[in-house]
């Protein structure tokens, strides 16, 4: 891993310096917090559902470059997807990050995320990369529950 290739390759640094979908959603379907106490990463994720579709995602984060970039790329990948597709995307990303046997190729629309493979060697940092994704899953569950409550009302 070196400056020239993996971890800090252009993609990551780009997302780190200019994180997409940064901010808050006033009227979010759900707002959830993710923390990684071991390295101090913290993020707040806002999610807006429209029926079964993820209409919008916004993130405010305080963390390392991996955490920030991973969140930024995630938001780009999932906005507009159906919940079923989001789950597939998360699964694909997670199995790439946990793979012990060399590099993994992702579907074309997720290609950018391959840039994060470089951190696989660093167990500490895998967690940084996964944090936004795990928080997203939590957010979806919370948002769905909220929706149900509203429907009942």
């Amino acid at each position, binding site marked *: *891993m070196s400056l020239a290739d993996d971890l800090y390759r252009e993609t990551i640094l780009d997302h780190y310096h200019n994180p997409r979908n940064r901010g808050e959603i006033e009227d979010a379907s759900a707002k959830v917090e993710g923390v990684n106490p071991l*390295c*101090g990463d913290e993020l707040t994720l806002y999610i807006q559902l429209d029926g079964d579709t993820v209409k919008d995602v916004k993130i405010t984060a305080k963390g390392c470059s991996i955490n920030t970039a991973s969140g930024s790329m995630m938001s780009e990948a999932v906005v507009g997807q159906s919940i079923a597709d989001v789950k597939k995307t998360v699964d694909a990303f997670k199995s790439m990050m946990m793979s012990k046997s060399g590099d993994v190729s992702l579907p074309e629309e997720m290609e950018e995320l391959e840039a994060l493979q470089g951190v696989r060697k660093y167990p500490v940092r895998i967690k940084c990369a996964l944090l936004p994704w795990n928080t997203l899953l939590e957010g979806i569950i919370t948002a769905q529950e909220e929706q149900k409550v509203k429907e009942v009302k």
Partner: protein
Amino acid sequence: MFDIKAVRKDFPVLDRQVNGKKLVYLDSAATSQKPLSVIKSLTDYYENYNANIHRGIHTLSEEATEAFEVTREKLRQFIDAAEVHEIIFTKNATEAINLVAQTYGRQNVLPGDEIVITPMEHHSNFVPWQQLALEREAKLVFLPLTEEGEIDLVAAEKLITKKTRIVAVTQMSNVLGTINPINELAKLAHNVGAVILVDGAQGVPHLQTSVRELDCDFLAFSMHKLLGPTGVGVLWGRESLLNAMPPYMTGGDMINSVSREKTTWNELPWKFEAGTPNIADVIASAAAIDYLNALGMDAVRAHEIELVEYAIKGLKGLGDAQIYGPHDATKRGGVISFNFKDVHPHDVGQILNDAGIAIRAGHHCCQPLMRDLKVMGTARASFYIYNTKEEVDILLEALKEADKVLGHVACR
């Protein structure tokens, strides 16, 4: 002073290349590198006289037992303890502290009592006391720190009271580098009838340490931070205290006699050494002590002060580096924690690694201190006998380089 070139030749790992660069190992506070003499001692043991100790009457066992007990005596001398049987082997400093908390602590701390610690303690000298306090309904009292991360002795005098049973404090902070006034704290503790446990994990490897001069009651440290192998911790305690404590673990070797109904305990130090100890690594630890003794702990300290002074000056030159702990090198050990505004220390660590430089980044097992400092973590460079000014230069150079990558670091 010693010949650093000769010293470096004794540490094979220093020839290591990392990412095409020569390794610059600045993580000795996590674990030190080991000289050839320590590695050879291990090989020699396993190739020539590996055997279980104490109970054997064959030659290998007798040789192993003798070598094992030689280390104990060397350690006694190294920390200037009165009695060799006050030296107890554990697996690490953490076990040594747990041992005291679970035996002496459980026996002596009652509801309403107080345990005094500092906010700069490593989790290993923090969580055991916190949990003991919770279990015993005792109170955990924190000594406040000054701006520069030193214990406020005026406040300490007020906070160490008749209610205090145990004062647990680190000899040197693994984050701030602060060297604490153990002797003064020991006086305060003894004045109120409390005991003082010193976490020497960082102090003993770097500072000439005499338990008699410190006048402490317990001292815990790890050989792996002291040129020794992994897997050996040391607990020193006053004979009278150790004798009054119940055993920690029970099993082989720590007994005197066992019947179906009843067990009586072996004498010190064996009462606290249940099961087969880490024979090879204890034996090899003697070579580590010999190595430091040959250099002289005074020279070790002088070398570190020189490096720390040089490094702090260099870091200050980088502009917006925040340096934690005392800025006076004589008041601190060979550990420097720093941060650059808005940059996560993990990123600093990773970029330095690209340049072959090994530092540590994170909370350093001091989450309460991180909260107090209001940071997620720090980057930490730590030095030992084999580090040079040239290596400090490489570190500083790499930190400047990092700027180009993260766009936040230094010199803007």
